[in-house]
Structures are given as structure tokens and as C-alpha cells.
């Protein structure tokens, strides 16, 4: 007892300090959450029940920078919503897709008619940090929270302890770019140069993994779509022609994945031959995206 009396001031100081750290953490997190949810960033919109559309696009950066909603609107006259993201891990795709559908229903919207699923992500190894950055939205979605808890338990615990830590993510910064505007016209605008392509060709070409965890996630996407009566088109989007030549194992891999998913895959990997339509070896720029939208419309996919 005498210890507490003797050190009363210090104990009060420490208690107040810890209370301040905790309160600041919660208040700061709440402010940031409000700020993010008020932006036009795709996942803020998704968890608000926005982004109502006839066509939804899902994939990693190749989904994001290939299927440009303004180009689709121009080519096919249909509203599209792109919920793809740079380095989006395949295991997270069923979560985002079902969250999209459930929030649409919650917001009294009808489900989309079609899902375009860019499947080259299924053959990719996840980049470090690509999944846990979605912790920004984990308190808006129980399945997302569970996915992070399953794959990144440390991140999950840290996000529970410090709510500010949830916002320690690229997605926080990115969403701030889209304050007061939609991000649905986001696309890479560069034009790839020969020099850049040469440098890429110097490296080993991408390998296509046959990862069962990713296959299971892709099957879940299909199952969720089927459950809601949404038609799914599996697509491999274009590669830069010179880079595509190096992807010798791609046709076999497409065949293998098609068998695993029991669903045909449209191979558009060689559909854009003009190199001016590419932002880099993997992604299109607005010109390329316009060409691709026209091709897809012509083929009856849009």
C-alpha cells in the first residue's frame, strides 16, 4: 500500500498516459475510417453498397488495368464496376466478391448480370503484404477479418490491439487520392518503350503456378456467382506481344486451370497486337483497354 502512496503521482501519470494512447488510437482510427469511407475508392464504395453495375470485373492488376469501365461503357453501353486491385491475392477474391454481392443486396440493388474474372492471378504467387493491407476494411466485413486472422494472425492481433494500425496500409493512402471522385476510371496511362520491354525480356518470364489454394479460391468465386445467378466469364487478358512469346507454358496452364475449374477460359493473351496499347508488359493503357473492350463486345462477352 505504501508503495502506491509513495509513487502515486507516477502511477497517475502512467495510467493517464496509457489512457491517452488508447483513446487517441480509437479516436484517430474512427476519424480515418470516416475519411476513407467518404472517398470514392472502390472498396469504400463496395462496403457502402455502391458500385451497382451490370458487369463486375475481378482480378489483380491485370484485371484493374485491362477492363476499364469507361471503355466498356463506350463500347457496349453497359455499366461496369471494377473491384480488382494491384496484386490482389486470389484467396481474397471470393471474400470481396461475396461482400460485394451482400452489400448490393443490403442496399436493395439487383446483383450484376455478369462477372468477368481475369484468371492469370490464379497462377501467381502472392506478393508479401498484399493480403494484410486489406485490414483497413476488416471491421466492415467479418469474412475479410477471418481471412486476415487465418493467413496473418499476427497482423490480425495487432489490428485488434491498435485500431490505428489497421490504417497502416497502402490502401489508406490510395483512398485519399479518391476523395470526392470515383476511382473507376483508374488505369495506367504510360506507353511502354522498347527499352523497357528489352529489360523485362532479360529477366526470366513469369511462372504459372498450379497452386491448389488459389484453385479452391477461384472455385469459391464461381460458386458464389452461381448461387446468385451471375454468369461468369473466365478470361486471360492480353500480354505485350513480345513478352507473350516468352510465356510458353501459358496454353498448357490455361488448359489445366480450365479442367480444374470445369469451366472454359477465354484466352485473349494475344488479342492486342499493337504495342502502343500497352502501359508495360503486363498491363494496357487507355488505348489498349478501348481496343480490348471493343473485341470483348464483338465476341459477345460484354
Amino acid at each position: 500500500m505504501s508503495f502506491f502512496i509513495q509513487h502515486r503521482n507516477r502511477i497517475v501519470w502512467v495510467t493517464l498516459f496509457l489512457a491517452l494512447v488508447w483513446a487517441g488510437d480509437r479516436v484517430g482510427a474512427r476519424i480515418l475510417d470516416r475519411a476513407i469511407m467518404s472517398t470514392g475508392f472502390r472498396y469504400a464504395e463496395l462496403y457502402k453498397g455502391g458500385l451497382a453495375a451490370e458487369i463486375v470485373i475481378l482480378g489483380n492488376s491485370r484485371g484493374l488495368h485491362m477492363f476499364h469501365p469507361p471503355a466498356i461503357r463506350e463500347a457496349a453501353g453497359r455499366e461496369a464496376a471494377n473491384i480488382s486491385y494491384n496484386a490482389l491475392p486470389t484467396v481474397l477474391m471470393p471474400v470481396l466478391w461475396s461482400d460485394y454481392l451482400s452489400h448490393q443486396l443490403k442496399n436493395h440493388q439487383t446483383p450484376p448480370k455478369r462477372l468477368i474474372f481475369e484468371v492469370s492471378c490464379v497462377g501467381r504467387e502472392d506478393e508479401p503484404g498484399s493480403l494484410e493491407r486489406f485490414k483497413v476494411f476488416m471491421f466492415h466485413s467479418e469474412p475479410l477479418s477471418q481471412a486476415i486472422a487465418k493467413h496473418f494472425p499476427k497482423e490480425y492481433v495487432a489490428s485488434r490491439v491498435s485500431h490505428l494500425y489497421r490504417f497502416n496500409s497502402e490502401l489508406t493512402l490510395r483512398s485519399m487520392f479518391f476523395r470526392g471522385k470515383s476511382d473507376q476510371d483508374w488505369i495506367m496511362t504510360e506507353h511502354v518503350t522498347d527499352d523497357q520491354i528489352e529489360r523485362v525480356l532479360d529477366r526470366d518470364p513469369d511462372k504459372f503456378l498450379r497452386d491448389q489454394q488459389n484453385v479452391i479460391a477461384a472455385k469459391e468465386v464461381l460458386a458464389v456467382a452461381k448461387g446468385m445467378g451471375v454468369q461468369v466469364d473466365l478470361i486471360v487478358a492480353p500480354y505485350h506481344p513480345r513478352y507473350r512469346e516468352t510465356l510458353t507454358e501459358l496454353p498448357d496452364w490455361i488448359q489445366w486451370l480450365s479442367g480444374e475449374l470445369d469451366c472454359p477460359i477465354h484466352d485473349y493473351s494475344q488479342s492486342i497486337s499493337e504495342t502502343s496499347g500497352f502501359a508495360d508488359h503486363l498491363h494496357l493503357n487507355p488505348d489498349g483497354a478501348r481496343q480490348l473492350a471493343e473485341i470483348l463486345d464483338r465476341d459477345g462477352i460484354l
Partner: protein
Amino acid sequence: MYFNSISFLVFFPCFFTLYWLLRGSTRVALCLIGSYIFYGWWAYEFLGLILISTLVDYFVGLGLGATESRTQRKWLLGVSIACNLGILATFKYLNFFAENLEQLVAPLGWKPDWPTLNLILPAGISFYTFQTLSYSIDVYRGQISPERNLLRFATFVSFFPQLVAGPIVRAREFLPQLETDRVFHWYEFERGVGQVLQGFLKKLVIADSIAIVADPMFGDPRGYSSINLLVVVVLYAFQVYCDFSGYSDIAIGLAKMLGFKLPENFRFPYFATSPADFWHRWHITLSTWLRDYVYIPLGGNRNGEWNTYRNLTITMLLGGLWHGASWNFVIWGALHATLLILHRVWVTTRSKNELRHEASPLTRWLVLPVTALKCGAMFSILCVTWVFFRTSTFSEAIEILGHIASLDGLSPSTLQNRLPLIKACGLVMIFATLELAMQIKTLPRVLERVPWARGVYYASLVWIIAFAGTFNGTQFIYFQF
């Protein structure tokens, strides 16, 4: 064990509690055991090297204390130098020397086929060998008495907060602190916690955020525009500073929490107005070590200008080489030697002229802008030297500097990896403002006088670390030295 690891987060509170529960030699023993656990967590097999260094210098110290014979004392000192530099040479420089020797004799038609040793560089080897060396030299010079208690001496060599990346502690500063039981002072503890948080902020928030953009660029600079390279080179100056001074802050802060006082290692180095000023602010414990054990024994500035320049050059070349077995570190040292010499020439010439001119009121008004200009100029030069420090070959450094000078691609649209780059730039700007507030003593004065302001400041550090820290367990840059 790294400071920025979960294991350390568990280790330190346990150690701290036990430490303050124990007294006397048991507490010192705990320090030693804790230090060995801390070091052995990373690679226990290298504990043997610390033990060798400890035992050799302990017995050399005892020997020096027991004999008055000049010859014997010289021999004993020779043993210490040979052993410490031998360990350093074997583990750090052997392959470097062998490769260079091979290249040197190749034109003579001789191709020696000696085996290359695939040795891992033991963490902190340059720090603790310098520490034990300075002990033996100080005992030899009669500046300190030899330490007779092996437990205390071993703790001095391996004290975990500063074992791996400094500050380099002198025996005369640290051993007396082990002789008496440290007393818990709330004031020191609180400041220690604050300094540890500040260190983590520098490392996790600034240095590691910059590493995300700097590492890929230094790995393959060809694909980047001039403006991109320029921005990253400037950012790297902050990365290396925050990484290293962050470690020092954590080390000094942890020691404070345990009741020890470690020497200051950084004093706002980027506010330096000259090369000499920079070395009074940057890695102070290394620069004073080199001054006391290399520069002054060589003659210092006592034997005329040319000898001073020679001594400066040797000292800085060795300082450069201390950082690693690479010609780029030697070039980095040579650049700093050149800067110090040029500055010395300039100061000597100017002081002669100044004797003839009285300072006018106008020049007094110009002090602030001129100081700012000098800081800016010094910082720019430092950025150039850091390119040699960061790259692994001379040609890489020249390629980066050449590309920047070519002004090829100055549009901000050519910036790559923009989001992390913007984050890093924003954080550096906030940090620079904070450093300025610290340098002009505004913030320290407020924090010293107002307890609740200190609480808010420390809480802000926690919030910033949680919100903007990079928690990928990146190693401290100076671990490799």
C-alpha cells in the same frame, strides 16, 4: 535478436523486471547472460569470438597492470591489437584482400588459386573489437586501471543495448557504472522510454519506409528517371541517418531504463555547416575513437599542414574501410578526407583575411541565411557521398550520379513507385521539421518543463509508429558493419 522483433518485445520486459529485482554482482551476471542470449539468438556460434576478444583483452589488461617493463607492455598491447584486428581481418576483410591481391598479381602472369572462405560477417564485430582495443590501449597508456573483475569486463564488452551497432563505449565511461548498483530513477526511466520510442520512430517509420523505395532503385537504377534518382538519393541520406541514429537512440534509451549512461552518437548531423562540423555530429563515438587512437597517434595537426592532411587522409580511409570490405567505402572515406582537407584550407585562408576585417552589422544580419545556405550545400555534398556508400561498385555510383546530372526526365510524371515515394517524402518532411524544432531547442524546452506535453509527445510517437511504421523486420543498416 533485433530490436524490431517480437522476440525482443518479449525479452526486454522480462529482462528489465529481473534486472531491477536483483542486486550487486547477480545483476551484473544477469546483464552478461542477457547480452549473450540477445547476441546468441541471432547466431550463437559467434559468441566464441566475443569470448575470445573478452578473455584476451581481460588478461592483457591484467598483464599490463602487473608489469612496468616497456618491452613487455608493448608485447602485451601487440597481442591485443593482433588478436582483435586478426578477428576483424579474418571475418571482414580476408576475402576482400585476397580478391584484390589476385587482381594485383594477375598482370604478372600469376594466378593464385587460394580458397575463398565463405564466412558470414558476425554482427557487431567492428563495434566490440574497437571497444576492447580501446580498453587495452587506454590501460597501456595508463589512462585507466585494468579491470580485475572478469564478470564486469565481459559485461562491458557485450552489453546488449549497444553490442551490435554501437555507440562504441569506452571502458573509462562504462566500467565505473558497473562497479556500483544502478539506482532506479523515474526521470531517467521516462526519458529512456521516450528515446526508445524516438528510435523506433526513426527506424520503423522513416528509414524502413524509405527502404521500400530506395532498395529497388539502388538495385537497378537503369529504369529510373533523373528526378526519380535524385529524390531517392536525397531520401537515402535520411534513411541511413534514421536507421543508424534510430538504433543509437534505442540503445541509449534502453541503457537509461537500466540506469546506465551511454555516450551520445548523433547530434543533428544534417544541420552541419562544414565537413568538420559534420564529423562532430555524425557517429560521434567512431569519429572520436578514430581521433584518439589513429589521428592523434599519427601526429594529428602538430607537424605542419601537409602532415595534418596526410593524417586526415589515413584516418578517413581507415574510417571508410571500417564500414566494410569494399572499395566504395574507401572512396567514401577518401571523399570525406578531401572535404575535410579543403575545408581546412579554406578556414585557414579565411581566418587570415578575417583578421583584417571587422564584422559589419550587415554581416550579422546575414548569419541565419548564410548558415541555412551552408547547411544546404553541406547536405547536397553529403548526398553525393552517400551514393558511394550505398552502391557496391564505383561504376554503379558514377552511373547514378551521371544519370542525375544528365537531367534526363525531370517531369514528376516519370516518378515510379509513386505512393510509397509520396509517403516517404511526406514523412521525411515531418521528420525534418521535428529535427529543426529539436535543434533550435524549442521542443526539448517545452518537453522538459511540461509533463503533460511529454505524455502527449510520447503518445504521438506511439500513434505514428502504429499508423505509419513498416513492420517487415528489416535489418538495421549498421548491422553489416
